[in-house]
């Protein structure tokens, strides 16, 4: 379980997160939704410590993350897997090397075991025959999938995905959503996913947090979201023809 308590973050005087308190539960896929530029990425980066919060507290299963000394932080980070919005693959390494990298760094597995693990992760994201390619020659969606494979290679306890399926076709997007939801239940991970895709919300949203005007505007799950009468949330949810028809 990850808890954010009253966190604030601003950039050059403009508040991006204003007193946000939210809990992400273990074994559930927790979604953060909101318009583009609403602060989803900033919230996620605060949660993993890439941005320093100005106020408040962050707890990982009762451990106070926001006040941890750097040695403990390093230990905890081995339990974290993160998919960046832009992929952030190491472009000096091949696909396979990217996925193997955390394993080589922190485990004593033999090379063949590490390879097996990497191939297993790559298969789970439907990637085959790309092991020896460099990220520069992959399509946007393929990069994303490699990045997901890398994020899950160490079997993390906490998984963060920043827009895992943006730039993917609906079918692959769905495969990725299901994968994230499946491994979350299978390994009882605490998973946090940023998205603005209503398909994902309705598919895997065990818990949904809506960010609006730097605040946590609404909280609920995929069933409740269609029934809510919060006007800003309704505007967000029913922005497309598809969801409007669904409502009818």
């Amino acid at each position, binding site marked *: 379980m990850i808890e954010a308590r009253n966190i604030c973050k601003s950039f050059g005087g403009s508040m991006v997160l204003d007193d946000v308190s939210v809990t992400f539960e273990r074994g559930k896929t927790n979604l953060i939704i909101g318009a583009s530029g609403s602060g989803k990425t900033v919230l996620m980066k605060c949660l993993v410590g*890439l941005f320093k919060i100005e106020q408040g507290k962050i707890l990982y299963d009762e451990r106070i993350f926001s006040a941890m000394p750097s040695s403990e932080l390093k230990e905890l980070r081995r339990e974290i897997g993160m998919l960046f919005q832009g992929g*952030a693959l190491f472009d000096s390494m091949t696909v396979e090397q990217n996925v193997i990298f955390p394993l080589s760094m922190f485990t004593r597995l033999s090379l063949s075991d590490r390879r097996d693990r990497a191939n297993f992760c790559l298969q789970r994201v439907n990637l085959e025959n790309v092991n020896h390619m460099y990220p520069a020659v992959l399509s946007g969606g393929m990069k994303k999938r490699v990045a997901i494979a890398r994020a899950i290679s160490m079997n993390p306890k906490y998984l963060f995905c920043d827009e895992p399926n943006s730039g993917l076709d609906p079918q692959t997007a769905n495969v990725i959503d299901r994968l994230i939801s499946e491994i979350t239940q299978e390994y009882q991970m605490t998973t946090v996913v940023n998205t603005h895709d209503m398909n994902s919300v309705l598919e895997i949203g065990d818990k949904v947090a809506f960010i609006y005007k730097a605040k946590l505007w609404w909280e609920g799950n995929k069933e409740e979201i269609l029934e809510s009468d919060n006007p800003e949330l309704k505007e967000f949810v029913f922005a497309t023809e598809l969801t409007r028809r669904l409502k009818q």
Partner: protein
Amino acid sequence: MYWLRELGQYLLLVKEIFKKPENQKIYLRQITFEMDKLGLESLGIVAIISVFMGAVLCIQMAFNITHPLIPAYTIGLSVRESVVLEFSPTIISLILAGKVGSRIASEIGTMRVTEQIDALEIMGINPATFLIFPKIAAMVLINPVLIVFSMFLAIGGGWAAGVATGLVSSNTYIYGIQSFFIPFNIFYALIKTVVFAFLIASISGYHGFMTRGGALEVGTASTRGVVYSSIMIIFFNLILTQLLLT
């Protein structure tokens, strides 16, 4: 007090770079990889510049030493001294600051703006150590080799130019490069080289690491890496010369 803050940040980063590595085996592999990328790939340019500069030095010496009381072997002697004391360690290091420094700063800068450095950090790896330490270690180990190589080629280039133009005979030149040899000068040159190697890798690494923004800023970081490394080389050249030779 802008530069004081920069200096402070630089020193903090250097402290970070020398933290204990997470996995020694991988670091060793990185070091050999960087030795190849940053050292061996510079052999060509070092060779060309050294031979030609040696040749020019020899011809200039021959034209300047025309007084009948100065023996002709002084040409070889003074080529050797200029090459060992200043040309190879300082000028070649400046060339490498341009070639290697821009490479380091843009590589690390690109990793910063594409969030690869954040990705390392999330994995529980210290990015400063992982990215910059192998580069410093590689350069400190390989640059002395490059510089000694450059010394031989420059002195050889001087010989070739002197003999080919008939300004000095082969025997006289060789006699010149062997006379009044002070072994300490080689030591002085190598100390300079090691310090310069450290400066190039750490300063350009610092500018890459501190990049914020996008492609434009990577370009700026690369330029700053080269400019600041060069200035610091010149500055430390003066200090080390004062300390070691007087």
